[in-house]
């Protein structure tokens, strides 16, 4: 593909438009991010470009006031359980849907797509009511089950194109050379599908940590995740200083960023989206 790469293009005006937009977007998101970051360390901030003084008091306040350690533990347990379960259920289903045609396949696809297409609060209210009836809501298991509803179909949607890209002839060759189906799975499919699995797992992890509605509807007082307790803190803003809410926000942000950076060690963002040639 050496001829396809023309470095000269990099100087063209449309590329500069791309860079300009990226810069604008980064300025907005960065501005929001640093506003929160600075405010969380501010002793007070009235009207100036920068806070009037700095302190770490608000972090200690957040740890005490919002039972931070418990909230962090709940968030991690919920998110990791949801990722593991949804990969376990989603990847085989995606494989079946990518490889085989059968009658009613479109109906099955639509059925699996619905939970990500219908907004979570729509089925969240009845789902939460149901979980309350079975005594699951308010407990960790209830929050995990509720979050699973959109997570595993999401894995399927992400994984289908990844698996479709793997040439079925590779599996056939391996089978013909005497590999058992299990060996084909571990030695041929799994290595080739790893970028997709990592991408799906990463996206589900981030989505679950950021999933507000379903957790909000099913969590009890001791099973709030970070984003829900952040919402409650911000909602009752009058009671607590904004700096302590921002400290909470910074902790939430660092958690997701650390997880993302960890994930980016294994996957390059370009692989997040499929790149067939080049």
């Amino acid at each position, binding site marked *: 593909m050496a001829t396809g790469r023309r470095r000269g*293009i990099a100087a063209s005006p449309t*590329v500069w438009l*791309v860079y300009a*937009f990226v810069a604008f*977007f*980064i300025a907005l*998101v960065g*501005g*929001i*991010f*640093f*506003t*929160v970051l600075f*405010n969380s360390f501010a002793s007070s901030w009235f009207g100036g470009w920068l806070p009037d003084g700095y302190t770490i008091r608000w972090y200690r306040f957040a740890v005490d006031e919002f039972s931070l350690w418990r909230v962090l533990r709940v968030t991690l347990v919920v998110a990791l359980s949801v990722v593991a379960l949804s990969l376990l*259920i989603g990847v085989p289903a995606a*494989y*079946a849907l990518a490889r085989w045609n059968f009658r009613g396949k479109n109906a*099955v696809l*639509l*059925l*699996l797509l619905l*939970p*990500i*297409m*219908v*907004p979570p*609060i729509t*089925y969240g*209210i009845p*789902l939460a*009511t149901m979980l309350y009836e079975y005594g699951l809501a308010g407990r960790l298991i209830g929050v995990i089950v*509720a979050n*699973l509803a959109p997570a595993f179909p999401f894995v399927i949607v992400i994984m289908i*194109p990844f698996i*479709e*890209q793997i040439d*079925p*002839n590779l599996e*056939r060759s391996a089978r013909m050379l005497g590999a058992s189906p299990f060996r084909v799975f571990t030695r041929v499919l799994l290595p080739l599908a790893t970028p997709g699995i990592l991408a799906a797992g990463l996206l589900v992890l981030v989505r679950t*940590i*950021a999933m*507000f*509605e379903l957790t909000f509807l099913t969590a009890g007082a001791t099973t709030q995740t970070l*984003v829900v307790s*952040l*919402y409650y803190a911000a*909602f009752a803003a009058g009671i607590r200083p*904004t700096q302590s809410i*921002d400290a909470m926000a910074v902790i939430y*942000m660092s958690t*997701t*960023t650390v*997880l*993302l950076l960890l994930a980016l060690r294994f996957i390059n963002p*370009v692989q*997040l*989206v*499929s790149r*067939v040639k*080049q």
Partner: protein
Amino acid sequence: MARDLPIARTTDDTARRLAGPRRGRGKERLGLLLLCPALLLVLLLFIYPLFYGLRLSLQPEAGGLLTNYSDFFGDDRERATIGNTLRLALPATLINLAVAIPLAYRMRRRIRGQRVITGLFVIPMTLGTVLLAQGMLSFFGPRGWFNKSLLQLGISDDPIRLVHNATGVVISLAIAEFPVVFLLLLGFVSGIDPNLERAAQMLGAGSWQRFRRIMLPLMIPGIATAFALSFVATFAVLPSAVMLGQPAGETRVIALAAWQAAYERFDYSAGSAIAIIMAGIELLVLGVVLVGRSRLYRGPATGGKG
């Protein structure tokens, strides 16, 4: 004409047909086995609750079968929530598509810093709507950095009101959903076999013609998917409409109405009814988009490996 283009599809189908009949039975059984857990779970966690909610909505605390529904549509304040939500979700989605389509199209071939740019776009996905809303309150506030910069640069004499109204909510939705829309489209565009475009170029098509005649038609399924997913996500807006908008006025969204019915008035029946109305509107929009998509879809246009 474009119907004949995707060459990869033909070879794939041929391969499938050749391999198909020999071990069809065993394959079907294995496929069913792999699919079963997912199907059961979707029935249990999605279909059953939805019917449960539907049944609940038809058993109002007082009155006949459809009381909850007639109450919703009979009350101006409740009915207005549909329009309120659409006025937030549609602009945010359309803005994102208008920006993401040319951007993804330009980046279908690597540009310098491609990896950094895609990486940067992934990072806002970690923020989440609640955090974005909290940060935007200060950043876009009258004394925030955004308005300070505008005043300093002389673009505006007075601080612009960007929070506690619909504009703030639209901005937050656009920022939150842009990375998803962009990455989805980029994945789709870069999955289109570049040989199709090269062939068009060789046959004398200019860059606009190549976009209009080759790439855009092939991108339509991707655009439709991006529109649908982004619209759904933004239609479900709740936290940012409460935190950044006027939850008592112009940004009283339908999700808030449902939540208030169920969790403030503890009328789960009415809450479920509003949730079902939401689902109906969603499914209507999705149905239109997906039917349109299936009409336009012309088979995979990706090149095979190797």
